[in-house]
């Protein structure tokens, strides 16, 4: 079948007129064919209901190519999820945001629990004056000795809120259903009307542990629409910011995993070293979470050679320590006994769910935005394909360890070459009218993507954000199938997903 989708490049602004407008049935055929060929959904979102229909844009990926197309969805349409699982949450989100009903959707539930933006009757029959979860029938299992365990929203730690519903037989989990939305702040509708400076703060706080990646997606989108490109030294700093973010979070995750199997030395060492890594970002931009570092047009701070030398010195001091603690973690038999074989997600399940990032790679999906759709300085860096792993907790831990060492190698390569950068102010740019831009980056949890749509005056009319966790929460649910409920914390840490990134 000939593709009626349009090829689009990461970070390329195209005219909205150039997006192929397909009938609902052609859109459906084309999207399903691409996913059947191994493609995945990057974005699927509505803009605003006009004359009873919802203009909807899809961004899909297949191999190393991004594709886009648009359609107009009526109030009810035939669900794509019924044929292809990767559309699952995207269609639920469409239903929640704009009151469209995907018919025969196998699991039509709210994603975040808020009234739709279109003033339409609620698809789920909710009255939003009533508290969350509203009309949410959880998956239920019947039978002798079956019992349910309900956990959250408030958890037993310094962790974000979410609700977990386990169906168990004895201690064995038959099914875990994760229902979120507690962190919903309504960021997407705030962005179109916000000033450039306000928007900068908002994108930095979509998920505070992923500030560099989200602000990079935002910066690239604005740059494409304003027809500006950052100079190479700025791009190197932005690449380094993303790698430092990855390093800090992966290091923290290994510590948390070690703590969850009660092996305390690495838990403490990794915890401390994570702090050292955050302090490198603090050194560069005055904030431990990259705030104000990556801005449209370049970098938000003036950085001198001495700054890069300082960070390089600290990275090199930390490198042997990280190597040794990683070695200690994986050489300890009590750790291996708990990690090995726990919470396995098969490659086929990972494919169906469309897992991204380390969680996807741990199950054998060798997709890394840095290699497949490289931007910034990644275009000049060689990244190795990742090793195939078995999809268990061990795999998700091991891949983090490998990525820590790879990120250090990248920083060691880049930092000596980095040049002075001049601070760029966050200012209002005039943006290309009637345009669409899609940006994709590899955050530490995986593929993060922003889509920005402008109107005839160059005003932003729709700002769509997709955090990698949006793809991966169901991976966590899948890992718990037929696992002891006491293994939940370990599996949860091995994914370490963002609640606020999902809930926006």
């Amino acid at each position: 079948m000939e593709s009626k989708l349009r090829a689009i490049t990461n970070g390329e602004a195209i005219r909205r007129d150039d997006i192929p407008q397909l009938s609902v049935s052609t859109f459906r055929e084309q999207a399903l064919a691409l996913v059947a060929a191994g493609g995945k959904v990057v974005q699927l979102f509505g803009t605003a209901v006009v004359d009873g229909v919802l203009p909807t844009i899809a961004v899909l990926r297949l191999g190393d190519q991004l594709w886009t197309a648009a359609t107009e969805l009526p109030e009810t349409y035939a669900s794509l999820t019924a044929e292809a699982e990767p559309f699952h949450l995207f269609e639920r989100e469409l239903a929640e945001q704009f009151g469209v009903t995907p018919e025969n959707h196998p699991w039509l539930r709210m994603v975040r629990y808020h009234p739709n933006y279109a003033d339409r009757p609620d698809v789920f029959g909710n009255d939003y004056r009533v508290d969350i979860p509203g009309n949410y029938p959880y998956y239920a299992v019947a039978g002798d000795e079956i019992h349910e365990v309900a956990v959250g929203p408030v958890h037993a730690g310094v962790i974000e809120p979410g609700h977990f519903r386990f169906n168990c037989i004895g201690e064995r989990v038959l099914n875990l259903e994760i229902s979120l939305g507690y962190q919903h702040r309504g960021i997407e509708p705030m962005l179109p009307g916000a000033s450039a400076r306000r928007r900068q703060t908002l994108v930095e706080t979509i998920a505070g542990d992923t500030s560099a990646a989200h602000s990079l997606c935002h910066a690239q989108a604005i740059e494409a629409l304003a027809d500006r490109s950052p100079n190479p030294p700025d791009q190197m700093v932005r690449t380094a910011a993303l790698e430092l973010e990855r390093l800090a979070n992966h290091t923290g995750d290994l510590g948390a995993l070690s703590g969850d199997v009660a092996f305390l030395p690495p838990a403490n060492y990794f915890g401390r070293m994570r702090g050292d890594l955050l302090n490198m970002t603090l050194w560069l931009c005055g904030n431990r979470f990259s705030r104000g570092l990556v801005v449209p047009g370049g970098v938000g701070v003036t950085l001198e050679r001495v700054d890069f030398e300082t960070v390089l010195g600290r990275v090199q001091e930390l490198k042997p320590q990280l190597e040794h603690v990683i070695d200690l973690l994986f050489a300890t038999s009590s750790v291996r006994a708990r990690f090995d074989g726990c919470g396995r997600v098969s490659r086929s399940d990972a494919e169906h769910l469309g897992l991204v990032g380390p969680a996807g790679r741990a199950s054998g999906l060798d997709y890394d935005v840095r290699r497949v759709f490289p931007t910034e300085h990644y275009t000049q860096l060689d990244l190795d394909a990742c090793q195939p792993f078995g999809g268990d907790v061990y795999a998700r831990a091991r891949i983090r360890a490998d990525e820590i060492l790879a990120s250090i190698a990248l920083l060691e390569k880049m930092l000596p070459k980095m040049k002075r950068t001049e601070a760029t102010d966050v200012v209002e740019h005039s943006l290309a009218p009637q345009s669409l831009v899609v940006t994709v980056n590899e955050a530490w949890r995986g593929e993060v993507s922003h889509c920005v749509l402008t109107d005839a005056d160059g005003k932003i009319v729709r700002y769509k954000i997709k955090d990698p966790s949006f793809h991966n929460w169901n991976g966590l649910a899948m890992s718990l199938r037929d696992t002891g409920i006491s293994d939940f914390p370990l599996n949860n840490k091995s994914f370490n997903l963002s609640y606020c990134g999902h809930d926006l």
Partner: protein
Amino acid sequence: MFKTLMNRWEQGHRTTSYPKTPIELPARYRGLPTVDPEAPAALATSCAEACPQAAFDRDERRIDLGRCVFCGTCERVSDGKAVQFTRRFELGTADRAHLVTAGDLPDLAQHAKQHFKKLFGRSLQLRQISSAGCNACEADLNVLGTPFFDLSRFGIDFVASPRHADAIVVTGPISRNMHTATLTTYEAVPTPKAVIAVGTCAISGGPFVGSPEISEGLESLLPVDLFIPGCPPHPLTNLHALLSYFK
């Protein structure tokens, strides 16, 4: 066993001697801002207009630290002539009004509720409630448990159940979907109890102020004893506030 010992040796002793000895944060860190009362009106106006958080009062020449996200925009647009961010990380206050400042914060220890020091000075158990927000505040609270800060050496710990807690530590702008859970958790803490608002979101709604999905500050729901501003507050800001207020 050999690897465990080698790593122990390599890692060494890392715990800070703060508060006995002071700590200096790096040059770019943005702590307590100071506003020049003599700065020209035009500069003050441009600071006020540039502030993404509407935290700068042009007429009074004050910054509301409860709204500020410490982005440094006002310092940049005034070239440091109207506002300068110092490296002072001690930002906690016992009164919301104290956060509106030109650069002087009252001594927190003196404004603390003295009976709290007696009750909780030797043992303070905290129950954290994450109520929306971006998870950065949570990250920098969690870090207090790492060996560098080692919060438990002060008799302060985060606990799993509100029933075991002496105080709640709230982060985030208290979304509509966390409203009830936040209040229920508060109610589950036995009295006497303290309420601590950590981060700009919990104090004013932070970056999300104006969204119909959030409330504009914990104080609109509960009586707050301790305000710790920042976006997020540096771990030392949290540590200083907890020690000054409760010890």
